């Protein structure tokens, strides 16, 4: 009797816990446990894998070093060439004249201690030196870039308003982003993928933009375009600008960005606000460059290049560009969340529309109901009373899988539903094994009690062996699988564990109840 009581207690406890966890999924607000998570393939949504192009982050760091070096050399009046062009991730500088070389070395040793000298070569008083960043520093920048990208994207998505997004780093430089329920996937992707590097650059008014277009770009300048699409004619126009490469101010000084409506043209624009330091810089630049043009550049596209009319203090500016309200709103979000430290590339994208997800749920449910219905009927006809016990165990089994899904906050996917249907088939296997054994023992002429005991006893290890191997496959799958496949591994593993439990503990309790308490003399086993 003692034996029965712990099994009974365990069965009641497990089933109770499973029911408690399962109920919120089907009846809302009964108690505050969470619902079962549905995978993106069932509820619709977007799955993205991005790669942060970390080497670009290293390159832009090096580019900043090159600009600093150029400024310093210019200040110290050391003529050097080659600083405009970066090749193969390194800077190559040429300095002529012995005195100049000495001065250059001094600058390099005093102010640029952290830069690695790749090669150094003096020939006829001409110094050629290649510089780059030390490996450790480059690695640090790469790591930082991924972390920052993750943080920035998380910020943007939070502000975009997606419920329960899942954003994770995967591997060295990949980001996994899952956005359940996103309807406008294109917009979400634009929002996530935009580098959003905001720069203010002065227009180079000393040189001719047309000459630059023909290939003669003056050192320290670059050509960028303003692209406009006319909403009426749907024609795009590209306007080239010759800009001074070094930005006078960047978006890193922003404190806020908001959408506002221009009262004159009734067009939305983004109002940005700088922090104190940014405001000071902005004031200084506008003061020094009155009547000159200042271009607002986002991700290397010119948005506008207004003429500075007067000194602007207060640190506020506006970005215009014929935005739709959504565009303006998204731009404000990315500016507030900050720029990505390096561009990102979409490596994998899976978008499922909500209608397909609903279809899948319906079809999965239908297949599950028909499959388990057939099995339940069969078990009853084949094993009669005992079959009925197995059917009860099967129903509890399904409840336990759902309870397990909710308790572990696992995700139910379409292959996961297939896994449940499959475990329904496999769960009865354990019962079939036991019943066949009991029949065998009865045939040998054992008493009912002894036959049931022997049946369970002999089948136990067989059931364990058979299920442990499936569990191994399930766990390996869980380790290697992604997304929907992981969902399958979860339900398969849960199903295996719960079917072993129901067969060896729960069914046994019911059998013992009938044999010991009700003292039945004949077992209905077909």
């Amino acid at each position, binding site marked *: 009797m003692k034996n029965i009581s712990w099994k009974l207690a365990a069965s009641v406890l497990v089933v109770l816990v499973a029911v408690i966890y399962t109920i919120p999924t089907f009846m809302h607000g009964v108690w505050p446990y969470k619902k079962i998570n549905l995978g993106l393939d069932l509820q619709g949504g977007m799955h993205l894998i991005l790669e942060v192009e970390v080497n670009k982050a290293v390159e832009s760091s090096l580019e900043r070093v090159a600009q600093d070096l150029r400024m310093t050399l210019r200040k110290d009046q050391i003529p050097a060439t080659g600083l405009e062009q970066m090749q193969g991730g390194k800077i190559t500088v040429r300095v002529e004249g012995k005195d100049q070389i000495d001065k250059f070395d001094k600058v390099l040793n005093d102010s640029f201690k952290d830069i690695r000298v790749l090669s150094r070569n003096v020939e006829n008083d001409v110094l050629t030196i290649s510089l780059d960043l030390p490996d450790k520093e480059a690695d640090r920048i790469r790591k930082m870039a991924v972390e920052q990208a993750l943080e920035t994207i998380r910020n943007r998505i939070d502000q975009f308003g997606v419920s329960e997004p899942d954003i994770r780093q995967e591997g060295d430089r990949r980001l996994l982003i899952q956005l359940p329920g996103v309807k406008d*996937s*294109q917009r979400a*992707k*634009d929002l996530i*993928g935009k580098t959003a590097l905001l720069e203010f650059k002065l227009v180079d008014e000393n040189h001719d933009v047309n000459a630059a277009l023909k290939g003669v770009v003056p050192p320290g300048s670059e050509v960028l375009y303003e692209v406009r699409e006319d909403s009426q004619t749907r024609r795009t126009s590209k306007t080239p600008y010759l800009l001074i490469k070094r930005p006078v101010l960047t978006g890193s000084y922003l404190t806020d960005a908001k959408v506002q409506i221009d009262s004159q043209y009734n067009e939305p624009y983004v109002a940005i606000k700088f922090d104190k330091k940014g405001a000071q810089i902005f004031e200084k630049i506008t003061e020094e460059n009155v009547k000159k043009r200042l271009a607002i550049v986002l991700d290397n596209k010119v948005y506008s290049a207004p003429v500075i009319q007067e000194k602007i203090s207060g640190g506020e500016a506006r970005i215009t560009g014929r935005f739709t309200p959504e565009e303006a709103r998204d731009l404000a979000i990315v500016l507030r969340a900050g720029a990505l430290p390096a561009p990102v*590339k*979409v*490596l*994998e*994208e*899976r*978008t*499922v*529309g909500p*209608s*397909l997800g609903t279809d899948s749920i319906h*079809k*999965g449910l*239908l*297949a599950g109901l*028909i*499959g*388990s219905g*057939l*099995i339940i009927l*069969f078990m009853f*006809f*084949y094993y009669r009373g005992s079959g009925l016990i197995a059917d009860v165990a099967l129903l509890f089994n399904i409840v336990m899988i759902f309870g397990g899904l909710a308790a572990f906050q696992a995700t139910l996917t379409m*292959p996961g*539903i*297939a896994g449940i*249907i*499959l475990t329904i*088939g496999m769960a*009865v*296997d354990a019962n*079939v*094994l036991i019943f*066949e054994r009991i*029949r*065998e023992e009865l045939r040998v002429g054992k008493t009912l009690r002894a036959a049931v005991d022997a049946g369970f006893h002999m089948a136990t290890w*067989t059931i364990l*062996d*058979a*299920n442990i*191997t*499936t569990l*191994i*496959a*399930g766990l*390996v*799958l869980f380790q*290697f*699988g*992604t997304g*929907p*496949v992981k969902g*399958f*591994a979860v339900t*398969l593993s849960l199903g295996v564990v719960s079917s072993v439990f129901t067969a060896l503990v729960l069914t046994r309790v019911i059998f013992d109840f009938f044999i010991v308490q009700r003292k039945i003399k004949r077992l209905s086993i077909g």
Partner: protein
Amino acid sequence: MEFIKPNTNFDFVGKRKIAYGVSISLILISILSLVFHGGPKYGIDFVGGTIIQVKFPNSVVTENIKSGLADIGLMNITIQTFGDPRDNEYLIRTDKPVQTNDTFSQQVKNSIQKATGTEPDIRRIEMVGPQVGKDLQEKALFAIYYSMLFIAIYISGRFDFRWMACAIIAAALMGSVYLLSLWHISMAILTPLAFIITLVLFWILNLKYAMGAIVALIHDVIITVGCFSLLGKEFSLPIIAAVLSIMGYSLNDTIIVYDRIRENLHKHPKNTLAVTINRSVNETLSRTILTSGLTLLAVISLFIFGGGIIHDFALAMLVGIVVGTYSSIYVASPILLAWQNAGKKK
């Protein structure tokens, strides 16, 4: 109710030569089909590419979809109906991963609408870059390999009672796979290589149950893969999941027969191995057929009612369960016998 009467005694072992013939020809057909088709037909999960699933309110001409998509630069596409033809649902596939950074889905929608005159519902877009595809391929092979390895270790431990030998095999294999992977040998070569090493080790260490189980597993996997290749079906991630669960399932059957063999070897030590094996297979036959039948019932309902997304998955399971049941009766057990006979000849 009983399908298989007690004391049935089919002569399975006596017919094993026929079974060998059947198995070997099935495996040959599978391998030939794979060779002929230049390897398995990988889905976009493994080679990269783009899939667009669209649904129309009424029927359309697929050629129009093609020409519409050609307008936005999508060439070399294949279009197939998805699920029930009455649903007017199509799967559009290109081999190239499309960088969908612009207004891609809108463009697709507009161009299809223009070409067919009907507004499509874009139900699903999947894009996998080639690098990710390669990674997934590797992961899938690793998954298959490791689950076979762990399963083999478990079986030889449980049935041959040689946990130490298994631990050594496991360590040796993992070490050598790791070393080989350092040389960037592709997993497609590495996996079969590792299997051969595993089998040789089992042979040397005399782990017969593990050997039999693994041979049966490889048999099942090759035939399932071959069947997919013959039918021109694609390999995607869910299919790999199906293959792995087939492995677990087919083993289920094998283990139950082995369990009986071991039990009967103790009970009736005087019987020859051939008689014991035959008796064990017969004794478990009722259970084998019932369970496989019931699981098949579940899978068939999934196959028929589960919808297009899960269709191929269910098909793989269907084939796997049938082959797995067959192999546990006709392959896994007779191998024990073949082993013994080979031992005698030495």
